[in-house]
């Protein structure tokens, strides 16, 4: 190879080298662009929480991993920031040098998220713990269980069972959604709850005698009564006087807003035979659209405003809580703000609320008006703001007509009559004052608490099958085939056992109801109506048709 050839070769190779570096630069640019999108945000462990993270990363790595994926971790909000507690608080204790409490209440969250905590405190969610004073409560505690522990009647091989906890059904069932009354074990063998501690506005117990009786383990940690913890019920009655648990919707420890935006989150509690909102949503077109277009829902965005960040489909949060372009993108933590009928009671009520967010019960229109602070129509308009993102006004208004009609039909045809019959039986002493000890009480319970609610919820969220087959059909069957015959049987029994007058009074109520135009078919037959239907079918489909 001549020298000249060699020089040319060197020049060519030099050029090739330079070209390869250009490729390297190109790869670097591409890599940087990709990294900008993918790089996980940095986790800041604040100094005060560093030891917590180090130890719990070994002991409970899931907790730490969850937290590291949260916005809290990005911003430098660690363990101590939420779990810190004053020494005067009932459940606080010293844990590896930090004064903390295990249970984090809305008061702790409110230190930074006070706006949301206040809204939540006014909502029906936070009063979910009030179930403790209701019929459901009796069902779980007494009918399904026992308010006092009782002796087991035979041994359980492999397990030493001293006493049977009769409250287990309530504790593992109702209270897990509705919220337990958190209790600490007391040195005198009892339990200490918020009622005993009487906390002040800062959450500190004023009843120091009760405080002194708190049973602690050998490290000074208060022993929480197992029946009430773990519990993340949305209406939990906390020791510091607050109600609720933010973690019910914003699962700890990543407190993911993304999760709270999805229907499965609400579906943990809002499902089942007595309020199948989750199933109803899934049947409805809204749910179908969501399932299909989930990738377009932009669930990870920081602000999640309907009309700006997404518009593909609504979830529970969309209609009931999240912000949209018509309300300035404002999220509310009080879903009641947008609900015009409450379908919880046996007879649905219009949600005209007073200044305390309680439903106005005054019936006289004149006396009602000054008491009302927020009308049902105002609430409905807030909901219509959401609907109008996808539906025109006439569409929305006509829907509300359909919905109102179904609720009122249920109210007038079955709920009020049913209530009247049950009331008459009670008033005339033909049914005991104990709930659920007679068949008719179960029948009535099913009618309004399960089937009646299903019908109303189904209508409210456009699920025809729930409105009809799981709803009104079953309401009607329950009413005609069970409630009425059972009431008549009791009346007969009353007559046979010498309570003629009372029996007659109840019978009169029943008869009066069944004479009404909407019920008359039951007594006197409805041949005319049936004949008309048969004619119509033949005209439409012709020939000898099976019906």
């Amino acid at each position, binding site marked *: 190879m*001549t*020298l*000249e050839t060699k*020089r*040319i070769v*060197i*020049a*060519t*190779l*030099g*050029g*090739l*080298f*330079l070209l390869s*570096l*250009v490729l*390297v*630069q190109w790869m670097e640019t591409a890599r940087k662009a990709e990294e900008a999108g993918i790089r996980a*945000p*940095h*986790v*800041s*462990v*604040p*100094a*005060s*929480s*560093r030891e917590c993270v180090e130890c719990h990363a070994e002991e409970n790595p899931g907790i730490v991993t969850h937290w590291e994926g949260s916005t809290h971790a*990005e*911003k*430098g*909000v*660690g363990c101590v*920031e939420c779990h810190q507690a004053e020494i005067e608080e009932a459940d606080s204790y*010293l*844990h*590896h*040098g930090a004064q903390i409490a295990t249970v984090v209440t809305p008061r702790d969250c409110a*230190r*930074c*998220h*006070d*706006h949301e905590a206040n809204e939540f405190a006014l909502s029906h969610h936070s009063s979910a713990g009030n179930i403790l004073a209701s019929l459901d409560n009796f069902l779980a505690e007494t009918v399904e269980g026992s308010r006092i522990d009782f002796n087991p009647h035979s041994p359980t091989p492999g397990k030493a069972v001293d006493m049977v906890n009769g409250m287990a059904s309530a504790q593992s069932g109702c209270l897990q959604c509705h919220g337990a009354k958190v209790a600490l074990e007391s040195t005198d063998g009892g339990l200490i709850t918020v009622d005993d501690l009487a906390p002040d506005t800062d959450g500190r117990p004023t009843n120091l005698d009760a405080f002194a009786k708190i049973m602690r383990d050998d*490290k000074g940690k208060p022993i929480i009564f197992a029946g009430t913890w773990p519990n993340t019920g949305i209406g939990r009655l906390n020791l510091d006087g607050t109600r609720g648990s933010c973690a019910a919707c914003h699962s700890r420890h990543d407190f993911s807003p993304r999760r709270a935006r999805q229907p499965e989150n609400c579906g943990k509690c809002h499902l089942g035979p007595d309020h199948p909102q989750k199933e109803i949503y899934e049947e409805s077109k809204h749910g179908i659209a969501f399932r299909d277009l989930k990738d377009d829902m932009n669930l990870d965005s920081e602000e999640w405003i309907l009309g700006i960040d997404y518009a593909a489909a609504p979830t529970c949060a969309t209609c009931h809580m999240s912000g949209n372009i018509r309300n300035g993108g404002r999220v509310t933590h009080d879903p009641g703000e947008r609900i015009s009928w409450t379908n919880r009671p046996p007879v649905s009520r219009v949600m005209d609320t007073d200044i305390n967010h309680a439903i106005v019960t005054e019936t006289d229109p004149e006396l009602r008006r000054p008491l009302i602070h927020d009308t049902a129509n105002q609430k409905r308009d807030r909901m219509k703001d959401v609907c109008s993102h996808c539906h025109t006004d006439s569409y929305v208004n006509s829907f509300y007509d359909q919905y109102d009609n179904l609720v009122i039909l249920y109210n007038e045809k079955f709920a009020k009559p049913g209530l009247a019959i049950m009331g008459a039986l009670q008033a005339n002493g033909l049914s005991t004052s104990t709930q659920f000890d007679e068949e008719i009480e179960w029948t009535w319970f099913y009618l309004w608490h399960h089937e009646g609610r299903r019908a109303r919820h189904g209508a409210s969220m456009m699920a025809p099958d729930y409105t009809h087959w799981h709803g009104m059909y079953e309401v009607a069957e329950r009413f005609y085939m069970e409630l009425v015959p059972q009431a008549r049987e009791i009346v007969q029994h009353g007559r046979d056992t010498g309570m003629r007058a009372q029996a007659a009074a109840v019978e009169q109520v029943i008869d009066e109801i069944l004479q009404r135009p909407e019920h008359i078919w039951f007594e006197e037959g409805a041949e005319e109506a049936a004949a008309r239907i048969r004619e119509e079918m033949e005209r439409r489909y012709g020939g000898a048709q099976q019906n």
Partner: protein
Amino acid sequence: MANEGSRSDLSAPDASHHAEPESPDRRQFLDTASRTAMVAGVVGGYGGFALIAGKYLYPATTGDVMWQFVSEVEGIKVGESIRYRGPSGEMINITRMRREGTADDFIALSSTCPHLGCQVRWEGQNDRFFCPCHNGEFDPSGIGIGGPPGDAGQSLPRYELRVERGLLHIAVPPPRFASAEDRSGIVTADEGIVGPGHDPCLGCESDRPGYHGGEELV
């Protein structure tokens, strides 16, 4: 064409002893051209590599900041100053001047004195930042007004603050990578007098693993 140098004639360039049919000018041109091309190739190649090495070494000033939670606004009283350590280890004094509850109430200044690196502290009673090493003084906005920094016209670097719903956040540069030594957050350890460039937290008792202010490790 083979190169001849059998007598190791070292000083002469690659002189050819063969008769050339080409013109000397063309010969000369090709010769120069090939030399130039070669130098260009080598310089281009290795020069490119040197450029890459340079970019590699030059610290990336991305200007990236991350917003970190400091404290609730109500957790800092008017006239009080708290010390905050950023994720990259920088020490910051955050002082509250007014009670309005906005970001303008506060000022976040590096607490490292630009003179020789000691930690300065806020003196509410004298309305100034004071450096104990050589009596450096800074006014509330961080401008040097006395001592060596004042003479040199130095001031304390500022960090941006933001108040969102009653919560104070600070913009700090992100650390290079997550490390076990990450200890960002409000600093509560008592430092004492420090020497030039001395990190007041070095050698602190509370650095020792397992130390909990006397509490028994559970």
